[in-house]
């Protein structure tokens, strides 16, 4: 479905943004239908941070989701609030497709955190 944005409380203010901070910011982007964040839903597949440039690979619960085009801007707004982030690039993919099994997995088990 889609997502909306609630206020993330970004901890820390070091110059180099961390994955934890980005994940925390993404935790503020909620699915308005389900009331769960894109992180809780397991929509985030990958986060790469290089010199303040954040690259996020994510999916949606269904291909052709009507918020396909606006989701990246919501994600960008949330992550740009993290101190030290200079740019945010969001790539939507459906490979692999999202399944509900991803909901119960923790960000660590998904490989988003070391």
């Amino acid at each position, binding site marked *: 479905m889609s997502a909306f944005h*609630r206020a*993330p409380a970004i901890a820390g203010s070091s110059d180099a943004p961390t994955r934890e901070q980005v994940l925390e910011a993404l935790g503020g982007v909620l699915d308005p*239908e389900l*009331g769960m964040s894109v992180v809780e839903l397991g929509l985030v597949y990958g986060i790469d941070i290089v010199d303040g440039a954040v690259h996020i690979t994510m999916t949606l619960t269904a291909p052709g989701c009507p918020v396909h085009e606006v989701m990246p801007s919501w994600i960008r707004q949330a992550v740009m609030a993290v101190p030290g982030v200079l740019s945010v690039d969001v790539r939507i993919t459906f490979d692999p497709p999202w399944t509900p099994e991803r909901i119960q997995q923790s960000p660590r088990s998904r490989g988003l955190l070391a």
Partner: protein
Amino acid sequence: MSRPGPSAGSAPSPTLPLAYLVTAAAAFVLACAAVPALAPELAGHYYHPRLTALAHTVTLGWITLSVMGASYQLIPIVLSRPVWSQRLARWQFWILAVGTIGMVSHFYIGRWPGLLMAAVMVAAGVTMHLVNAALTLSRVERWGLTPRFIVMAFAGLGLTVLFGLLLAADRIWKFLPGSFFPTLHAHFHLALLGFVAPIIIGVAARVYPMFMLAPEPSGWPERVQFWGLALGVPGVVTGLLGVPALLVPGAIVVAAASAAHLTWVSRMARDRKRPALDWGLRFVLTGSAFLIAGGTVGLGLAFDLLSGPRAALAYAVLALGGWVSLTIVGMMLKIIPFLVWYRIYSPQVGRVPVPTLAQLGWPTAEALAYALLTGGVAALAAALAVGDARLIGAAGIILAAGALCFAAAVARVLYHMAPSGRRPAAATGARTA
């Protein structure tokens, strides 16, 4: 009015499906409100001009407009392809709306030339929808279960309308061979099993897992549903039209498809990751349960264990009022808030607090609608089976009250489109960055 929402991906402007869905909801309220008034007629034979008007208010005004509105919203999502022409869809809406009003009013007063003209308008509107859908579908690259069901449904819709046109013309020129009632029954079953059933099953295959957070269905129920309808509907229709030997096998195969659908919905409900069901999903699941009663009475009619107008009317109410209408009410309680939210609040995300979809609605009205509509449909089916006008009138009042609660719930959501109806999420805890 608000500024338009973003034009996102392949989805059409939210006002396009909303026009269909809101008009359909109005037809539903009108039909339910007419039941108590038509109680004496409903206690008699179903072939009565006013009851035919009521039936077409439900089938054309409520069901067909809902399906078309939902399909303009859902087909782009389900098929990942934009609607071929939104302009054609808007013209089609007006032609269908005027044609449906014309058909219902001419049925009510029993004027056949006017009925035929209105039926031609409806046929033109349906043809526009079929053209739009065909050109949208032609760009689909991967033919999964849902596109196949949608093609089946729209083929069924085309045949149903063609059949209806012939029946309307036959009221004037009397050219159709065979008896009238078997032809009428074939028209009804073509609409119910050839158009409505595949569209519900096909759309459900994609949106129920999305709403319930359940695994997408697969395996034998999928194949039994598809082939059950693909083989069973021609069997039932030709069986009614003049090859009686095909009626019972056709009905059995359709019943198998219904059983597979129920198995499949139950699996999704059981395996869902969404802990709490909202009222929309409760409507959908309860509507599916009505398939058991409707299917049982339908099989009883096919096997000649039941007969006559009492059983036929109870069957029609269980199928159209129970399974189909409760499912559509549930889907509307999911789709309309999303369309309104998307148009009004989506552009504000990240700038001001916005509510969630659940905060747009009116849960008390939805709960009352659920209790009254499910109870009202069951009571009406029982009262029709008995044939007592007072009981039918009482059940109709319950149903009408439920429809008004549903309308109130929808109106509360639509009120967000007016500036005075909007509410920030701050009061309810949701915030933005």
